[in-house]
């Protein structure tokens, strides 16, 4: 397996790595979501990624894109919460954007995460700056696009993207929630972490970790 591209097997590994992170961060996600929501995020994200991982492990799809798309369908079925549906949408849209590629290079990953982010924005009817998962994902997609323009390898590119997502996550702390259960708290959400942004950062962290040897 080459680290220059994410093939079917590599993409399954990335999903698996995210699953492990979601399991590991279960209590933290519960706590983050309890602070400005209902606390279900710590339950729904492990569930969603377990379903995606179980699907990926046994996938008969022929391209990583198609596999990631189907993994999104499996997530949607397993975890029909706000974030479950949004992340599932991300995987479906991202996977569809790169459905024909036999393997994903940095530019393929950039396309995947751009479509992933755009899909969530469309589904969530939201913009940057509304203190959501998008505020972690968008900087990561931008970082991947820049890395692709520079011709960077996927290992470095995903590491940079994970750092960008983490920066996005912390930047979102100063924003005011506009959507969902958190929106009713408005000003009170400023200075507090957005649980969805934390999920966004973990997704990139998992992808990055899966290509480190």
């Amino acid at each position: 397996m080459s680290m220059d591209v994410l093939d079917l097997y590599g993409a399954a590994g990335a999903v698996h790595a995210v699953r492990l992170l979601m399991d590991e961060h279960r209590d933290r996600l519960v706590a983050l979501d309890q602070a400005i929501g209902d606390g279900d995020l710590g339950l729904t994200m492990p569930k969603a990624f377990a379903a995606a991982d179980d699907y990926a492990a046994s996938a008969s799809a022929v391209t990583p894109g198609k596999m990631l798309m189907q993994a999104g369908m499996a997530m949607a079925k397993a975890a029909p919460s706000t974030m479950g549906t949004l992340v599932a949408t991300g995987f479906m849209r991202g996977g569809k954007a790169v459905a024909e590629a036999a393997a994903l290079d940095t530019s393929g990953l950039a396309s995947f995460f751009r479509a992933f982010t755009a899909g969530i924005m469309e589904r969530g009817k939201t913009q940057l700056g509304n203190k959501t998962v998008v505020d972690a994902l968008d900087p990561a997609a931008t970082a991947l696009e820049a890395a692709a323009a520079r011709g960077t390898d996927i290992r470095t590119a995903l590491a940079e993207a994970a750092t960008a997502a983490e920066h996005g996550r912390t930047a979102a702390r100063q924003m005011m929630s506009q959507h969902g259960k958190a929106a009713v708290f408005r000003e009170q959400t400023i200075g507090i972490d957005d649980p969805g942004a934390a999920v966004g950062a973990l997704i990139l962290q998992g992808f990055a970790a899966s290509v480190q040897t």
Partner: protein
Amino acid sequence: MKKFLNEAERFVPDMIEGILAAHPGRLASVADDLHCLVKGGPKTPNKVGIASGGGSGHLPLFLGYIGDGLLDGCSIGDVFQSPSADQMLEVTRAIDAGAGVLYIYGNYGGDVLNFDMATEMASMEDITVETVLGADDVASAPKTEGQKRRGVAGIFYLFKCAGALAAELAPLAEVKRVAEKAAANVRTMGVALTPCIVPQVGKPGFELGEGEMEIGMGIHGERGIRRGPLVTADTIVDEMLPAILDDLPYERGDEVSVLVNGLGATPKEELYILFRRVARELQQRGITIFNTYVGEFATSMEMAGASISLLKLDDELKRLVSRPADTPFFSQPQL
């Protein structure tokens, strides 16, 4: 919590099993999932399928409207929770008869996300899906932010008009058009007297003091526009009705259908006491009542309270409201 139930976790499945047992042949679950319900019997070829769905706890919403002249299928979530996009997709598949499917559901974040997702999934299977949202609650956002408004009891009129036209084998675009027309012409406002209890939570989602009411409260207990001492039925109508009338606005010479909806625990006696004032006020303002529905059309389990909906009629909507309909929960002959 004084409820007839077994385990709280079994509230929804036990209820659906009961409904299926009570109305064999008229309702069926698909995909081996009690949360996916469709009309019994063979599909009518080329009839537009109409699907709705949303959280449980609102009977007869949603599945109670599956039947002749109304809906073809519904996906049902846990109490006050959206069903999954996957469940919506299963229903969509089951009711598509080649003419496409119209989703009509209430404007709530989780439901919108999932129905949009189901639309996307259905399109991958070449099923055409269109959507019309119920967003009739004038108390839930100002008119300038109409797209933020929640859907409440007035959604019944969307079902009724679209369902009647679909029964006549009109094409999807037409069925969607009348659902949109009904949506554009219906307004609702509610008032709550007591909270209700989500079984798995076990305690009320909010408190209302002994002598208190909340005008404009949503059917999940969403904050209303005014909390205050409980006043007389006439005074309540005098506060709610103008808010509805001014919003569309409904004007002298208009003809309307009126729906007085009980939220659950409120007896029909009281709904009619409210309606009495509605009828007088409308008459005074020169607005004619074509017909009236009084009863439980969209509830919040055992919440005490009521809502008033008006649908402004033109000849087309009047004809569609008048058409017969028959489901296990609602039956109307040709008016």
